[in-house]
């Protein structure tokens, strides 16, 4: 484990550290946050000792909002990414392993999905549905599997020709067994960077949709916090402690994920060169 971390580049270590920090913050929100995010104090307090990041228009403690917000934002990010990855992997594996007509159909479907303008579609659907944050994650997951499907397919096309797949087939294992125990483990390393990228784009998309006022009003995500600050005069009055922290959190979290992913891609290059 420590060897693995040691092999990371410096930027990836920073990314990993940041990522773990956010993850811990989200998991242990109750323990870390000084107050309940819905508790009301006097409004518009600038940062001070009692409230490290001040309070908003309703008197909610912004640091606590930020910490609990990380939970909402990360759930949307991870939820969408997990869904997109699972769909993409299954589609890619099936297309790559079976080839022929299955491949044609599935890749045709992928091409069609790739052409749908995703953010505008999510905006239109969200306008009609007024979705909960689960819905938002689900929608994004249903749209973002295409690039994963493509890389998994091209890797699966290579893996299926390997001799261990052939020997498994000649031993009489079922196709499902071969796909999931022989092919899948060998495509995992191309899935990881895509998974991280999906988390990052889901988080930005959630923040953007919330900014448009289409977010889940019962949940305080980072995007919703910025939206509230924008629509309730936080910008005009210069209450920087209201909108700056959530925006920085989005940026930092996305950055941490991208930094981790960049190292995986570098290693990928190395692996390819070594072959």
């Amino acid at each position, binding site marked *: 484990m420590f060897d693995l971390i040691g092999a990371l580049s410096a930027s990836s270590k920073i990314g990993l550290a940041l990522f773990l920090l956010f993850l811990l913050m989200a998991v242990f929100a109750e323990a870390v946050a000084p107050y309940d995010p819905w508790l009301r104090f006097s409004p518009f307090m600038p940062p001070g000792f009692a409230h490290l990041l001040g309070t908003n228009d309703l008197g909610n403690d912004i640091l606590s909002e930020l910490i609990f917000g990380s939970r909402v934002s990360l759930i949307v990010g991870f939820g969408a990414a997990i869904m997109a990855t699972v769909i993409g992997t299954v589609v890619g594996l099936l297309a790559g392993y079976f080839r022929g007509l299955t491949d044609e159909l599935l890749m045709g479907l992928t091409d069609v999905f790739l052409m*749908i303008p995703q953010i505008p579609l999510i905006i239109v659907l969200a306008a009609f549905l007024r979705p909960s944050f689960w819905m938002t994650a689900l929608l994004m997951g249903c749209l973002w599997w295409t690039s994963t499907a493509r890389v998994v397919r091209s890797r699966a096309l290579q893996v299926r020709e390997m001799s261990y797949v052939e020997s498994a087939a000649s031993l009489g294992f079922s196709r499902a067994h071969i796909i999931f125990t022989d092919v899948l483990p060998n495509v995992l390393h191309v899935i990881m960077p895509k998974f991280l990228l999906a988390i990052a784009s889901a988080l930005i998309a959630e923040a953007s949709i919330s900014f448009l*006022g289409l977010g889940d009003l019962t949940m305080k995500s980072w995007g919703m916090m910025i939206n509230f600050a924008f629509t309730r005069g936080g910008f005009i009055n210069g209450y920087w402690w209201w909108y700056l922290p959530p925006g920085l959190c989005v*940026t930092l979290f*996305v950055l941490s994920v991208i930094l981790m992913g960049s190292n995986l891609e570098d290693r990928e290059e190395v692996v390819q060169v070594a072959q």
Partner: protein
Amino acid sequence: MPLAAKKAARYAVAFFLIISLNFAIPRAMPGDPLTNLLGEDVDAAGSTIVELREKMGLDQPLHLQYLCYWRNILCLDLGYSYHLHSPVSSAILSRIRWTLLLSVPSLILGAAIGTFFGALAGWKRREAVGKLETALVLTVFCTPPYFLSLLALYVLSFYLGLFPLKGFYSSGSWLDIAHHFMLPVLVMTLFSASRNYMIMRGSVIQEKASLYAAYARAKGLYGNQILFRHIFKNALLPIITLLALDFGFILSGALFIEIVFSMNGMGNLIYDALLSRDYPVLQGSFLIITVMVIAANLLADLLYSRVDPRVRWQ
């Protein structure tokens, strides 16, 4: 050519499916389809509702509605916005030129700047200054566009008073319009440049390892000559795709920037439609964006096969 036929079929299917999706959304969503088609601030009662229902064709069976819908689209009739009191198509047309004025210069500038510096960064990736530059660009790349716009607006316009706070113009002279455009164009250029930069950097790093680069070095060419005479052209290929796709999002890409800077382009049209639940405008815009994106994909495919012979002969 079977590949071209296959591609054409995929485009046709995509086009057909997405247009059909646009038909299905207002009818499948919860609530009254009439409200979903007209927008939520249409307040009609009794006989007017029956009349409107008839006028929209909602009393007819679905397959007839569907045919009628296609006929309207082929006649470029996108419906009527009761909120704006104008046909959707003319509402969109009147906004498009402002959006183009904002996004076309930004995308061109962004592509030029991003490609140039990205190529240099990929070429000299181990230098400390280059690393700092890449880190900065990466940070911009990871920021939600509206957040950076808000910061720029707050610091440069509100706090320092260097730029106007909102809109396209106040007096209408060219100088005034340019002054209003400067900051939004700057922010959008920054984002476009950051995307191009990251892609170009990665592309150059990949190309750098190829044999023809080593050969150019062996021939005795200097660093920058190898980069700009040999590697640059090949590394540019992914940028072509990105540019073509950017063209597809030329109307909707400025959405958030327009909202933050209160500019009356397509983006704000969509935002206002969202706030007032003006569904016809929302759907009409979505349709236009979709057609643009499909066209852009087609363009990317065509350009790519023209420029890269390896793709053409596959």
